[in-house]
């Protein structure tokens, strides 16, 4: 992978991370905040995969897998906590 592509993609994804974090902080409702945090983990998985591609190393993908698992269960738990036991 070309280093210029890697650096540009890293900067763009970091800006996306910052924007989503800002959205999570400034969210009007709690469910919007849960959505922003879920998107934050998806973007982090993308960033870790990008590092894995650039350095041709599988360790970053292991971290990405753990993060995806944590993000999914965290989203479900947060939504369920928000609604009491109405959901599922």
């Amino acid at each position, binding site marked *: 992978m070309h280093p210029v592509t890697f650096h540009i993609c890293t900067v763009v994804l970091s800006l996306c991370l910052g924007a989503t974090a800002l959205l999570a902080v400034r969210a009007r409702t709690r469910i919007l905040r*849960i959505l922003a945090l879920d998107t934050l983990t998806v973007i982090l998985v993308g960033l870790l995969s*990008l590092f*894995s*591609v650039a350095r041709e190393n599988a360790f970053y993908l292991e971290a990405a897998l753990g993060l995806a698992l944590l*993000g*999914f269960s965290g989203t*479900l738990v947060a939504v369920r906590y928000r609604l009491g036991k109405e959901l599922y």
Partner: protein
Amino acid sequence: MVDVLVVLGVTLLAISVFGMLWLPDLYTKLHAASKGGFVGTALIILAALVVGGPGMVSHGVLILVFMVLTAPISAHAIGHAAWLAREPMEQEEKIDESGRLESDQTD
């Protein structure tokens, strides 16, 4: 090939975040975040499958399968929770096909 996949994926992720910032209410933001975020990340992982050895391929396939299974579930959970919590719709031409949110507003 790898660079093209990565650039496509990062562009899709950026569009998805732009949609989250720009669209008016939770339901439309969810639309941008779930589809765009999943496809963008999947393209970057596909690049990892192209470039990597057996270790990276096994991990990449695992993440892809996991995300295919869980992305719709979490999106559906958030959307269903928003509907149950009576999250308001804010776009111009809003339609709630269950009729509940509209009847709330006429009360």
